[in-house]
């Protein structure tokens, strides 16, 4: 008797596995075995009509993605690539539904094994609507983001692995996959790699200096203006915010004119005041870089000032009162209260600004077009070009789409790396210091 019961229980216990296997073989079969007929029926319909009918579509799309077309002038490789990516994303969705179906069969089988009844269709529908409400509301947004952000992103990344340039342009030619050859070439090929290294170096220096300078000046002014002893603080603050209120591209173009060597107002002023020679602001690499950082400082410090003012005003006043009671000096208050709290709130902002400046195309392009030229650099690169403006030149002047895409991926990896590393550090910083 006893072994028989045990056997029976074991048999019953296996329902979860059976259901899971059944659902793996054909969607919905497991649900039917579990006695959930409506749900099972829906899954079966999905499998029979959507999945089976779409198999030829997927085969065609993936073939297209691999071969990128066969007949020049008729097949357009870029279309094949886009269709392939769409198929890939759809496949992921179907795969998710498929996995959900198996998991569902397994879970409900488990309930049956434990002697419980799985929820009825009505109740599970209700649960989906209740529990999944945020996801249902989010889904249109997610679908749009997939279509307009993720799809083009994958597309432009894939270009880096093809030979897409002028001489292989569709529709006359069919693109080929070339693996990581483009990366290899950009990073190692004689003058290209030299150009890449130089531009990369300047990009990093530029990002650091532009971030530090704006936040330095902005912070200095914010702390100064946060002192209640200064009169007309609001007016001064408003005046200082003005550079930020003018559209940046207008003021950059005005700066470009003002910095002209022989005709610009800045040199005229400097010559009259200090009796020096004209400074070739935009015509020598060193001065062009100095000019860039100064103009960026002028444009960027008000933003930093506002941010830091906000942070300063959120520091509770009782900390200072306590410090005064303890007999702290002004410097000690600043050093031990203001600065740590400021840095703590500012760290993520600094990282974001750094990432922003790393890709700050506007100012580089508008102020001096990446110039002045440096003899021997490739791809039209100039002395103040950063990676992103170099990519622009590569794409639109040299029609080297594959190289441009490869460099964008490199930029992406660098920025993503920086951001992830820094954000993680910020959090550990917060957990260690703030919980004391």
């Amino acid at each position, binding site marked *: 008797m006893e072994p028989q019961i045990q056997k029976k229980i074991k048999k019953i216990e296996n329902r979860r596995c059976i259901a899971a296997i059944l659902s793996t073989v054909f969607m919905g079969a497991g649900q039917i075995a579990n006695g959930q007929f409506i749900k099972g029926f829906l899954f079966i319909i999905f499998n029979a009509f959507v999945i089976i009918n779409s198999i030829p579509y997927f085969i065609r799309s993936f073939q297209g993605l691999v071969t990128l077309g066969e007949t020049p002038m008729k097949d357009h490789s870029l279309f094949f690539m886009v269709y392939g990516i769409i198929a890939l994303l759809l496949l992921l969705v179907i795969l998710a539904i498929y996995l959900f179906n198996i998991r569902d069969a397994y879970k409900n089988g488990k309930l049956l094994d434990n002697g419980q009844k799985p929820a009825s269709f009505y109740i599970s529908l209700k649960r989906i609507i209740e529990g999944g409400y945020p996801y249902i509301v989010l889904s249109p947004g997610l679908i749009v983001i997939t279509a307009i952000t993720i799809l083009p992103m994958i597309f432009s990344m894939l270009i880096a692995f093809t030979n897409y340039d002028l001489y292989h342009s*569709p529709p006359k030619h069919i693109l080929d996959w070339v693996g990581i050859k483009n990366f290899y070439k950009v990073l190692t090929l004689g003058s290209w790699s030299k150009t890449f290294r130089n531009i990369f170096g300047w990009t990093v220096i530029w990002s650091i200096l532009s971030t530090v300078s704006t936040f330095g000046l902005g912070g200095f002014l914010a702390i100064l203006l946060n002192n209640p002893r200064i009169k007309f603080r609001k007016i001064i603050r408003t005046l200082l915010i003005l550079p930020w209120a003018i559209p940046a591209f207008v003021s950059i173009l005005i700066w470009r004119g003002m910095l002209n060597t022989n005709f610009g107002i800045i040199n005229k002023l400097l010559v009259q005041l200090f009796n020096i020679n004209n400074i070739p602001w935009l015509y020598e690499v060193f001065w062009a870089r100095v000019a860039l950082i100064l103009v960026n400082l002028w444009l960027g410090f008000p933003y930093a000032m506002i941010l830091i003012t906000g942070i300063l005003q959120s520091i509770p006043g009782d900390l200072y009162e306590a410090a005064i009671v303890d007999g702290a000096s002004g410097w000690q208050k600043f050093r031990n209260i203001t600065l740590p709290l400021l840095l703590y709130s500012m760290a993520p902002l600094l990282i974001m600004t750094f990432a922003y400046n790393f890709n700050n195309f506007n100012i580089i392009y508008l102020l001096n077009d990446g110039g002045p030229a440096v003899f021997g650099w490739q791809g039209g690169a100039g002395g103040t070009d950063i990676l992103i403006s170099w990519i622009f030149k590569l794409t639109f002047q040299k029609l080297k789409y594959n190289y441009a895409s490869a460099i964008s991926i490199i930029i992406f990896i660098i920025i993503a790396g920086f951001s992830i590393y820094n954000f993680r550090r910020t959090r550990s910083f917060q957990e260690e210091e703030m919980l004391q």
Partner: protein
Amino acid sequence: MKRVVMLLVLMVLVLGLSFNVEATKLVVWESSGTEEEFVKLVGEKYTEETGVEIEVVAIDQLSQSDKLALDGPAGKGADIVAWPNDAIGKTVEQGLLWPLPKDKLNFDGYTESAVRAVRYKGKLYGLPYAMETVAIIYNKDLIPEIPATFDEFLEKVLELNKPNEQQYGFMGQIWKLYHIFGFISAYGGYVFKETENGLDVNDIGLATEGAIKAVKLIKTFRTSGLMPEGITDDIFDGLFQEGKLAAQISGPWAFGNYKEADINYGIAPFPKLDNGEYPHTLIGVKAYYISAFSEQKEEALKFIKWLTNKENSFKHYQEAAIIPTRDDVISLPEFQENEDLRAFAIQARRGIPMPNIPEMMQVWDPVENTLPFIFKGQVSPEEVLPIMVEQIKENIEQMKQ
């Protein structure tokens, strides 16, 4: 039986559809504004005469090739497109243009240099309708006329050049190949050697003796104080409008503003250089092309031939103030009366078509990047121009990898 019926039904359907499209319709892409309006205007007349419908879609010339590359294979492209001739090489490499059958064309009356401009690798891809080049625009109040030789001209403008009094003699974008090529060509330099099969990309003539001589002459514009460092086209355009500049190198796009600014300006072709040669400036030519994807190429060809005939070319000049690419229009008294365009037309007929091969893209930047070093006196032309040519060759090499 069933299949036969199906087939019959299908055939009837296809026939029905083809009857529908029998009223031929040609789609033309043109930049919006005067260009688009002109094609619309004469297109109506063409429809009256031949029954062929003309649909004009406003698409900027510079973005047409990108659009055609995507729309053409999908069957949505235009039959006739239009863009500057320097994009021909690029678009032929992309497979967008149909080479015109030479036996059906007759170039009597067309300006020879403009027809040369639409050839690529020995084949002809379009019919030119307008051209553009640089010439000397001068202020008649400061310099009543342009002397017959360039040396005299330089002497004259140097007299007028008084930077301390905010008066300048002569300016131009001397760091850009397009604006200075006239000097290089007059002394025997060239960009790519012209051969029977088109331009030879391996033979670059920007470091020849003539080119070096020309660059030395151009350098004297800087060293003599005519064109200080830092001038830009905006700056000297502004100076000219204020009446502070006697003469400049510029193109037909500029003088509209001077009319408005009430400047007593004149336009003259470049005077002879000391070797007796006239500068052959680079000319940009706008042309109509037939899409390789068009299904009515013959009809389209008939239309663009009609569009660029003498009568319509003259009309185009009247409507859009272009410089026609037909000698028989330029010689008309009605055109000769227009002093502004006449001077540009004379210069353009002396000109050399802008190289239309895609390799040309690798030339502009190195030249623009090298010349400032020479003007600063950091390097001599003899030293650096050969290096520049090597760099251009390397760029071309890499472009093809």
